[in-house]
C-alpha cells in the first residue's frame, strides 16, 4: 500500500467512528437537499437543463485552443495580461515575481480552489507576504491551519461553538456562538485587510471567450472587495472553465447555484473584463489572468474521461455522496474531495498513488445522478480501477481473480463449490472473532448469512427429475 492509501484507511477509521460529526454533516446536507430539490423543481426541465449545460461545457472543453485564444485576445485588448501556466510551479513563480516587482506587501484572497491546488499561500507566505483569505469559510480554515473540508463549504464540519472558540483564541474576540456576532467579528477583522492589501487574488467560475471576461459567483461580496480595492488583481483559473458565449451563463449560473447551494442564484455575480479603463472610478490598475493547465490537458487526452473537465465545482456530488457524508472531506487528502476528486486526482497526481480513492466507492451512482453537467462520475471510478490494474496488478488480487475465473468458467466446479460452502461454514465459528477469520472485515460488524444446504441449482435439478 502507498502512504496515501494507508493514511486514507486510518482517517476513514477515525472519521467513521465520530458519529456526532457525521450526524452534523448529514443534517447540514439534508438541509441542502431540501433546498436543492425545491430550486431544481423551478426549472421547466432540470434534465434538459443538464443536457444543455453539458453541451456548453463540451463545446468549451473540446475547443480549448479556439476559445482560450479568443478570451486572451479580447481580454488583452482592454489592457489585461494573460499568463499561460503549464503547471503549478510556473503559476506560482509568475504570481511571486509579480508581487516582488510591484513591491507588494499584503495580499487578500477570495476563494480559489486552484490556489489550494498549487499551494499558492504557502509559497507566498514563505516569501514573506501576508496573505488573508476573505471568504468566511476559508478565513476560518486559514485561522485553524486546516485545508478546506469541502470545496464549496470549506468549514461545514465545524460547529458554531468551535468557530467561536477559534475566534477567541486567534482574534481575541469575546466568547460567542451566535452566527451574526461571529460574522461581525470576521467582518471587522477582514475590512482592514481589504484596505491595506495591494494585491487581490481570486479564482474564476467561468471564462467567457466571447467577451473576454471572468465570471465570479459568490455569496459574501468578498470577491468584489478583494478584486476591486487592491491595485493589482490576479485571477488564477483552470483552463477548463472556458465557455463560448456570455449567454451561456444565463443557464450555467443558476445551475451552479442550484446544484451547489440550492439557491436560485448566488447573491453576487460579477463579470471582470480587464483593469480600470480610462474614465472609470474604480477597479484595479493591473489585471492578470493566470490560465492553469497543471495536468488538465492530460485528462483532456483521455477520451473516456474527458468529460470530467466539464466540472463546474458545484460540489453536488460531494453533497449526495454517502462516502463523503461518512468520512468527511479531509480523509481524501486531496484538494478536490468527494467523487469528482476521486476521479480527477489520479490524473493530476498519479494513478498508483491515488487509485484507492476510486476503490473506496460502492459505485452507487448518486454523484452521477446529481451532476448538473452530466459527468459520468461513478463509471470513471470503474475505469480508473481498470486502468490501475492494467498498469500494475496487485499480486494477491491477480491470484484471487485468476482463481475466480477458473472456477466460474466451469459449472461443475462452481456447483461443487456452492455445495461445499455450508460444510466450510460449519468450521467458521472456530475462527469467528479471531484474526484467522478470512471474512473478518465483514464479520467484525455484520453477521454473515448461512449458505443453503441445498442450493437453487440442486432444487431445480431435483424438481426437474420429479416432473419427468
Amino acid at each position: 500500500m502507498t502512504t496515501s492509501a494507508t493514511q486514507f484507511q486510518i482517517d476513514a477509521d477515525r472519521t467513521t467512528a465520530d458519529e456526532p460529526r457525521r450526524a452534523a454533516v448529514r443534517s447540514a446536507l439534508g438541509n441542502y437537499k431540501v433546498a436543492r430539490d425545491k430550486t431544481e423543481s423551478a426549472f421547466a426541465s432540470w434534465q434538459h437543463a443538464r443536457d444543455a449545460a453539458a453541451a456548453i461545457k463540451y463545446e468549451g472543453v473540446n475547443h480549448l485552443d479556439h476559445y482560450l485564444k479568443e478570451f486572451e485576445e479580447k481580454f488583452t485588448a482592454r489592457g489585461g495580461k494573460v499568463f499561460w501556466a503549464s503547471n503549478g510551479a510556473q503559476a506560482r513563480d509568475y504570481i511571486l515575481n509579480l508581487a516582488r516587482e510591484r513591491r507588494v506587501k499584503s495580499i487578500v484572497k477570495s476563494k480559489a480552489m486552484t490556489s489550494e491546488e498549487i499551494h499558492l499561500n504557502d509559497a507566498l507566505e514563505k516569501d514573506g507576504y501576508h496573505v488573508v483569505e476573505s471568504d468566511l469559510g476559508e478565513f476560518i480554515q486559514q485561522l485553524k491551519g486546516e485545508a478546506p473540508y469541502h470545496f464549496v463549504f470549506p468549514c461545514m464540519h465545524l460547529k458554531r461553538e468551535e468557530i467561536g472558540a477559534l475566534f477567541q483564541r486567534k482574534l481575541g474576540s469575546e466568547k460567542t456562538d451566535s452566527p451574526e456576532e461571529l460574522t461581525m467579528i470576521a467582518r471587522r477583522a477582514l475590512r482592514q485587510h481589504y484596505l491595506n492589501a495591494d494585491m487581490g487574488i481570486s479564482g474564476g467560475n467561468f471564462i467567457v471567450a466571447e467577451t473576454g471576461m471572468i465570471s465570479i459567483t459568490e455569496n459574501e461580496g468578498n470577491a468584489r472587495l478583494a478584486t476591486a480595492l487592491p491595485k493589482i488583481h490576479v485571477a488564477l483559473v483552470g483552463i477548463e472553465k472556458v465557455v463560448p458565449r456570455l449567454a451561456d451563463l444565463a443557464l450555467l449560473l443558476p445551475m451552479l447555484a442550484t446544484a451547489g447551494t440550492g439557491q436560485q442564484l448566488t447573491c453576487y455575480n460579477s463579470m471582470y473584463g480587464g483593469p480600470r479603463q480610462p474614465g472609470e472610478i474604480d477597479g484595479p490598475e493591473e489585471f492578470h489572468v493566470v490560465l492553469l493547465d497543471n495536468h488538465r490537458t492530460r485528462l483532456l487526452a483521455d477520451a473516456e474521461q474527458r468529460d470530467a473537465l466539464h466540472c463546474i465545482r458545484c460540489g453536488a456530488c460531494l453533497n449526495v455522496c454517502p462516502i463523503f457524508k461518512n468520512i468527511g472531506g479531509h480523509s481524501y487528502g486531496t484538494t478536490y474531495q468527494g467523487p469528482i476528486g476521486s476521479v480527477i486526482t489520479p490524473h493530476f497526481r498519479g494513478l498508483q498513488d491515488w487509485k484507492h480513492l476510486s476503490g473506496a466507492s460502492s459505485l452507487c451512482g448518486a454523484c452521477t445522478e446529481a451532476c448538473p453537467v452530466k459527468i459520468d462520475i461513478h463509471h470513471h471510478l470503474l475505469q480508473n480501477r481498470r486502468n490501475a490494474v492494467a498498469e500494475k496488478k496487485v499480486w494477491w488480487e491477480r491470484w484471487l481473480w485468476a482463481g475466480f475465473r477458473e472456477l466460474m468458467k466451469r459449472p461443475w466446479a462452481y456447483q461443487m463449490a456452492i455445495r461445499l460452502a455450508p460444510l466450510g461454514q460449519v468450521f467458521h465459528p472456530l475462527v469467528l472473532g479471531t484474526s484467522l477469520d478470512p471474512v473478518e472485515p465483514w464479520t467484525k460488524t455484520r453477521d454473515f448469512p448461512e449458505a443453503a444446504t441445498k442450493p437453487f441449482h440442486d432444487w431445480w435439478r431435483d424438481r426437474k427429475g420429479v416432473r419427468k
Partner: protein
Amino acid sequence: MRVTLFIPCFIDSLYPKVAMSIVQILERLGHEVIYPEGQTCCGQPPFNSGYWDEARDVAARQISVFRDAEVVVSASGSCGAMFKKFYLELFHGRPQEAEAKALSAKTYEFSEFLVEKLGVKDVGARFDGKVTFHDGCHGLRELGTKAAPRELLRAVKGLELVEMGEAESCCGFGGMFAVKYPQISTAMAEVKCNSIIDAGVEYVVSNDSSCLMQIQGYLSRHSPRVIKSLHLAEVLVQQ
C-alpha cells in the same frame, strides 16, 4: 412466454428461496420457466475490481449460456445491470459485442419484467406486515427501476408500504468495497438501517439480495428489535 432465469451465484448459494419464489410466481402467471444449468456468475466481482480480462472470460460464458433465451429475467438488479449495461462496456469493440448487445436488450430485472414487460402489477399475493422498500443502487440508477417494485408491493393484500427517509441511499455493500473498506461500508449500513428502524417496519424488502445481505447482516447485530429482510419475490409468492 418462455422465461429464462438468471440466478446470480450468491442467490443460488445463500438465498435459494428467492429463486424458487420467482419460479413459482412466473409459473402461476402461466409462463414457462427455463433455467440453464450451465450458468455461474456474471463476472461483476472482478469487473468492479478492475480485472476486466478475467471478468470478460466469465461473462463470455454467460453470453453463450443465454444465447437462445427469448427473455432473461434476473433475480438481482445489480447482476441484471451487469448483463444490461456493463457487458456492453466489457465487450465494446470485441468480437462478442453484437451478442452482448442482444443479451442486454432481452434482459430484465424481475420487478421490471413483471410490470413493464408483462404488464402485471397484482400477482395475487397476500402478506400481512408493515414493509419498507430499499432501492438497490444498480437497479435504481443503472436500470432506472423505481416505480415497478412499489407498484407490485402496493397490490399485495394485507401489506402496508412505508417509505423510509433514506430509501435511495446506498446500503454500503458495493461488493469487494464491503471488505476493503469495512469501516465506511459499515457506517453506510448504520445510516441505512437506522432509517429502516425509524420507519417502524417489521420487514425491509428489496429487489437485490446483495443489499439485503448487508442490511440483514447489520440489523441482526445492531437492531434493538427484530426486522426481517426479504427479497421482493419472497413477498410476492405468499398467498
